[in-house]
């Protein structure tokens, strides 16, 4: 139902569109994603006013390797949608959606932290759950589960705060 409406409105911009297990999913191309996400937020009949979740999935043996997964929710119409953008390892970046939903601020920082995917136009893309000198991105499948991190050298917190505020 929703998927039909999406196909009608966006046509060839949807690389894939399917419904499985009651969840509707569409896949977008990276460059078209910001425009379509804006339309999904603003246009009547979609009205996805809430970015419920944003995360990544790593498929090392696939090409492109990463999926950035957005979960949208509409308060007024009560429907949900999953949106995916696929990006490959060498240029793992997508456009930031902070301008559309403020929730994206921290979610994109977390996705960057965990997967090393960058969000163009974010403005404050720092690590969030891990510390700045952490090496690697732990939710990538090639990050070994039991890998140890080097000890962070002690610094003077007054002259050289470990994490300068913005």
């Amino acid at each position, binding site marked *: 139902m929703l998927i039909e409406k999406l196909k009608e409105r966006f046509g060839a911009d949807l690389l894939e569109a399917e419904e499985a*297990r009651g*969840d509707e999913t569409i896949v977008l191309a990276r460059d078209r994603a910001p425009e379509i996400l804006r339309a999904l937020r603003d246009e009547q009949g979609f009205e996805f006013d809430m970015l419920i*979740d944003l995360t990544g*999935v790593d498929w090392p043996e696939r090409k492109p390797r990463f999926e950035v997964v957005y*979960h949208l929710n509409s308060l007024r119409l009560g429907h949900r949608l999953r949106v995916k953008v696929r990006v490959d390892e060498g240029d793992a970046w997508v456009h930031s959606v902070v301008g559309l939903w*403020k929730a994206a601020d*921290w979610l994109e920082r977390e996705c960057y932290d965990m997967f090393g995917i960058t969000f163009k136009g974010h403005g404050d893309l720092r690590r969030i759950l891990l510390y700045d000198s952490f090496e690697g991105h732990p939710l990538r499948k090639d*990050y070994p589960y039991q890998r140890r991190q080097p000890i962070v050298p002690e610094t003077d917190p007054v002259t050289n705060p470990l994490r300068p505020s913005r």
Partner: protein
Amino acid sequence: MALPARWQQKIEASDPVEEIMELQMGPSHPASHGTIKFNLKLDGERIVDCDVEVGYLHRGFEKMCEQGTWTQCFPYTDRLNYASPCINNVGFAQAVEKLLGVEVPERCKYVRAIMSEVSRITDHLTCLGMAASEVGAVTVGFYMLEARELLYDLVEAVTGARLTVTWCRVGGIAHDLPPDFNDRIRHAFQNLDAVLSDCDKLLSRNRVFIDRMSGIGVLSREDAISYGLTGPLLRATGVPYDVRKAHPYLVYDRFDFEVPTGEKGDNYDRFNVRFQEMAQSRRIIEQALASIPEGPVSITDPGVVLPPKHRVYNSIEGLMNHFKLIMEGIKIPPGEAYSAVEGANGELGFYVVSDGSGRPYRVRVRPPCFFGMAALNRMLIGRMVPDIITTFGMINMIGGECDR
């Protein structure tokens, strides 16, 4: 004793009246229950900027879940929001069941709903009790902890543990309700009523309390939606969004209950919404207990649920079944699913991906209080330092869930 030279220089160089002072509050601060750091920029006592730093309790929940079988994730989910572990269990089980395409028996749905509501009350009691004692109403804090203790006894009677319950399974629950559950819950509710009425008298017309809460930490409705807030934080702005009503799961569509909302979106409204929700949870539990059907609490599909112990020890088929499930895990066809429940702090979602092996390929949890913490900066700018305490308290950040 002389100060080190660099401190001396810093003190001489700065004029405390003109300068914007940087203050790092936390990560371990007696007034913030939870390990969190606020990098503040202060003009006198007014907050100019507040950079909230989370992650001190990061344990790699999502990475850990990828290492074991689906069943082995349940103990980790207990430790997400440890003030209401049953809801986390239910949320995860539901997501995996959606992925697997199985439906749990009726009685299991009722029991899950009952325990979710009991957990919601314990979570709200923790949040409100702590928030009240942080503004000086220590009595309320202890009263509420006492009432919570009775509910924890109830949780212990059902699950065998107070916090680390690990009580749901894929396809059902580990134990049915104990035979004396109705008596126990009646006893707990009698005490809860007395406590809530006492707390209401202590707080609802208390000048100090109202002055500290009312008009503080305001967030507009548009901002709350844009920040992705759910649960009491969103409902305090007047949006009646509740996953139990908007996307009904379990048997919530059969119960008659209201979704309390606020108007101004300040801390006082958040407090009130939570306070009233406890009464609604009570209503749900009473209706559920009145209509709960008899029957099994778990499905019997041997590919999903462990066989009973007498079959494991007395038959080779049972033993093999047990061995395969423990060693290889539940084989879930490749795919993905997102499923949400109404956690005590808002929408608790699980996004699970399977690649067809017996192990989760990806488990993502949508932690409701993470979104509240992201909005904290917006709520605090322009306010005073003591307002951090009440606002932070009303977000009810649970480190285990926010930092995972």
